[in-house]
């Protein structure tokens, strides 16, 4: 039952229809979503962990209905936002990563081990005691990733995680994505980030207009916007 399933999902903000009858069965390990500004990508991605509820249809994560079991779903889905600044809660890097585990009620030593491992994995060990809000944009995004992944979610959804980063940091994030064991859904305008993914979905006016391997789907998207 593992994977993300959209069943006839629509969404509207007031009068405006933003997502229109989308049905998808996402089981691939790396799924990319592309599309023009305002085409409904973020809205679709947010539905995966219940930040937005569909007005029609339903979304299932590992067989769980997101609108009914949002709490359980959020434990499986980690969400990375575009602007890491809004994701940072605690004053120092280490504390912010540890903050995620507060709800897990692990014992102290266990939690510390996991936090240290997450910091090391994203190259943040040196910065552990630095004020989180004074990191550079790229370091903040790495921190956001560490804070999400320390909870070991089975699925990671990222909405334009590299948009605010320079080319080097964007490549760095791409490398971490490549090494990830989790299922990954990434919304991006940086098409090269999605080139080695397993599947790419193209959105236009709230609908899925292409859904294929990256080579084919990205080509379709390039034609669409040219």
């Amino acid at each position, binding site marked *: 039952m593992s994977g993300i399933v959209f069943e006839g999902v629509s969404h509207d903000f007031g009068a405006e229809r933003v997502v229109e009858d989308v049905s998808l069965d996402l089981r691939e390990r790396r799924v990319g979503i592309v599309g023009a500004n305002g085409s409904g990508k973020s809205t679709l991605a947010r539905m995966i962990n219940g930040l937005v509820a569909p007005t029609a249809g339903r979304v299932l994560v590992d067989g769980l209905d997101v609108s009914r079991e949002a709490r359980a779903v*959020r*434990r499986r889905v980690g969400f990375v936002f575009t602007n890491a600044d*809004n*994701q940072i*809660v605690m004053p120092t890097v280490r504390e912010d990563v540890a903050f*995620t585990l507060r709800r897990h009620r692990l014992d102290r030593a266990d939690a510390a081990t996991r936090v240290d491992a997450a910091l090391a994995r994203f190259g943040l060990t040196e910065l552990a005691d630095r004020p989180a809000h004074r990191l550079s944009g790229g370091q903040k995004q790495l921190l956001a990733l560490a804070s999400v992944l320390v909870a070991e979610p089975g699925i990671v959804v990222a909405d334009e995680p590299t948009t605010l980063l320079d080319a080097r940091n964007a490549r760095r994030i791409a490398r971490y994505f490549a090494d990830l064991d989790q299922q990954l859904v990434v919304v991006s305008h940086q098409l090269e980030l999605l080139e080695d993914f397993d599947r790419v979905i193209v959105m236009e006016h709230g609908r899925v207009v292409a859904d294929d391997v990256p080579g084919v789907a990205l080509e379709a998207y390039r034609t669409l916007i040219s």
Partner: protein
Amino acid sequence: MIGVFHPGTSVVHRAPALLKLALLAAFVTATALVVSLPWLGAASVVVALLFLVARVPARAALRQIVPILWLLAFAMPVQVLFGGWEAAGVMALRLVIAVALAAVYTLTTPVSATLDAMQTLLRPLRRWIDADRVGLALALAIRCVPLLADLVREVMEARKARGSEGSLLSLAVPVIVRSLRTAEHLGEALTARGFDD
């Protein structure tokens, strides 16, 4: 309180936050009760020793203490005039000691340790107060200070770039709108991290 924590391994760093808070309260109360200058002088020496033991860089320590010295530079003459030298000295020393002690505490204690200590303190009241929630609210309040400072700076810069300096409205409106948006995003991020009740 924000970003002033100075990591280290001294006894002062390693002491539990709860103990440090208790000692801080006791020491400050004691200095408030003592009226003799020599005793307060001795207390100042103890505080200075604490800074040495904690090995906090002088610059970081001074940044915490200098503001109160400015305040005293204005308050002292008035006190001397009305209460005499001795009363003024006692008041000044008390204030400096209290501020310096608070500085030792914040410089050597990570915020999360303070939050934990506070949750421990609130535990007996758990029937009425959700300690986790109070801790989260405090953490967010602390987080909002740099967030708001950045926001105001960005809006000021944008205002300058567009040549609309001067009008208070052109500062207040975008700051308020963006604060609300930031609050919304922060809320979403918390929800996504499982703090959704």
